[in-house]
């Protein structure tokens, strides 16, 4: 089976090589020669993508249908993953975390997406009137260039009970229940990481919206002002609709970010996702099942990865479709 596949690939490669080298030596009709040369533009990229991206993707899908002993189990791994309390753990809700990885990713989207998106939009709007706004933008955008693993490490400092700025702040204003280390308790851990990530990621939405705002002619707002349109209506009727292309971008990229989140959680907690797995996410679950736990379970890990990919694909296709249509 494996041999067959390799022979298929090498056969294809040989054909391609013959064609390209024939073309380079000037054999064949001028037209065939030109086509052969043009293939050379694509060959290196397609080879690398096929071998190290496409083939692994297909293999992962294949692996997700087999159990740890190499027996074909169909959708068994998916059933096991979706039925496991590691993934969905809502018995007796409302309750404190752990909620399971899938729910945690959903919580990430529900809180992180609107917060970072609208905060960024609002900043982009406000900063238009500010002198030296490029400095302010630079300061806010630094979070976007920080390695996310270090973003995670920084959560250790921000939320530390004795040296962290957040607990000290809440202690100072008299909310003593939040004046302790956030990462040591399940509820504050999950939401603390989400808010921390908003701090890092808002720069993205701010920069994209800022660029979008420069493309809107000033006359639109001036006309609205002369007509006496209230500020909020100007925003909902003029500014926001004109920024739709930016909203599509920010929305899609943010959802992808929230679904794929890994480094930040790993840096701030451990491969188990912190106390009781409260901050566990799908990407971390996959990593743990394949590369941390002994014995490794490639079948379920591959199922988690495939499921996660399905989510990212659906999210991308749906948001782009929905928003482009309207």
């Amino acid at each position, binding site marked *: 089976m494996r041999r067959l596949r390799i022979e298929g690939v090498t056969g294809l490669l040989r054909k391609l090589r013959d064609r390209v080298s024939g073309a380079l030596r000037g054999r064949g009709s001028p037209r065939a020669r030109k086509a052969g040369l043009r293939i050379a533009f694509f060959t290196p990229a397609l080879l690398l993508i096929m071998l190290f991206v496409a083939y692994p*993707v297909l293999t992962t899908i294949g692996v997700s249908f087999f159990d740890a002993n190499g027996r074909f189990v169909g959708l068994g791994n998916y059933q096991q993953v979706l039925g496991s309390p590691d993934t969905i753990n809502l018995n007796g809700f409302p309750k404190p975390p752990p909620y399971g990885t899938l729910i945690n990713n959903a919580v990430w989207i529900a809180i992180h997406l609107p917060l970072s998106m609208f905060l960024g939009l609002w900043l982009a709007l406000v900063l238009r009137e500010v002198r030296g706004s490029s400095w302010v933008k630079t300061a806010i955008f630094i979070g976007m260039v920080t390695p996310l693993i270090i973003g995670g490490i920084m959560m250790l*400092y921000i939320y530390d009970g004795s*040296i962290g700025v957040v607990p000290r702040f809440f202690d100072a204003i008299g909310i003593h229940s939040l004046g302790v280390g956030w990462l040591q308790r399940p509820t504050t851990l999950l939401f603390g990481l989400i808010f921390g990530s908003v701090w890092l990621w808002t720069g993205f939405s701010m920069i994209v919206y800022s660029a979008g705002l420069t493309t809107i002619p000033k006359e639109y707002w001036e006309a609205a002002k002369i007509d006496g349109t209230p500020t909020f209506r100007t925003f909902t009727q003029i500014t926001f609709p004109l920024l739709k292309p930016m909203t599509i971008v920010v929305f899609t990229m943010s959802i992808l970010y929230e679904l794929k989140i890994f480094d930040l959680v790993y840096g701030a907690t451990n491969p188990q996702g912190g106390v009781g797995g409260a901050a566990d996410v799908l990407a971390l679950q996959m990593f743990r099942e394949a590369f941390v736990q002994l014995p490794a379970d490639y079948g379920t890990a591959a199922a988690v990865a495939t499921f996660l990919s399905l989510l*990212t*694909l659906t999210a991308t296709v749906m948001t782009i479709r929905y928003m482009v249509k309207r």
Partner: protein
Amino acid sequence: MIRIRPRTIVIHLFAWGLAIGWLFPFVGLGMAAFRPLPEIIGGWWNFDRFTPSFTKFGAAFNAIELGLRNSFLIAVPGTLIPMFVATLAGYGFARFSFPIRDYLFLTIVVLMTIPQQMVAIPIFRIMFSLGLANTVLSLVILHSAWGLPWIVLFMRNFFSALPKDVEEAARVDGASDFKVFFRIVLPMALPALGAVAVLQFMWVWNDFFFSILLCPSNPNCMPATVALIRTIGQFQFDPGLLAAGSIIVMLVPVLLYVLLQRFYIRGMIGWTVKG
């Protein structure tokens, strides 16, 4: 006479205050690295005693020196290789037409949205069977392949927006596709390539998942992000040392961003908005 309205003052105070507040966690990290731990218990903004020192930076640098070297060895070829390969393909997608072109292009774009976890298990096996496990080369190859889809998309969009006149004139004069590409197209693409280089370099430098997948423990190949966790973070937790190490590792992408901001933003916006 310029009249300054109170609203203007409030907005400026707010914006500048916000920028400073936004940087607070970074300042805190710096304080943890520069000052002995007992001094900052209860908050780094207490300056009753203030004895900054660079000792933690020296120790942290020694611990991750090899990692920094590896990061450069991975990120430089991991940027240049996909840039060159993807520019060729991006040009091909923009200028040549052939039967399955659009499907092929769509497939590549779809691959952009997939999480790294989706290739992890097979890549781990492939690199082992090729004898490349625990080498810098394995990460160079993987990052090159992984970076391709977005660079192909980015460069295709760039070339599609470029007028064809000059190229066609050269073709009429008898220049081959390759000659046109290297002599005419590539020089015109330099600004776009600058944006690509900055972004790809940062992504490879910042990467953690692929790095810990292919080089979790060997100091001769682990990049700085992994070395930070493995050599400083793991055994005895020293907050000062970890903070100093983090600052050293993030200094590279942050400096790159501050110095090359123009390329950076252009890359970010072009890559997302046009896509």
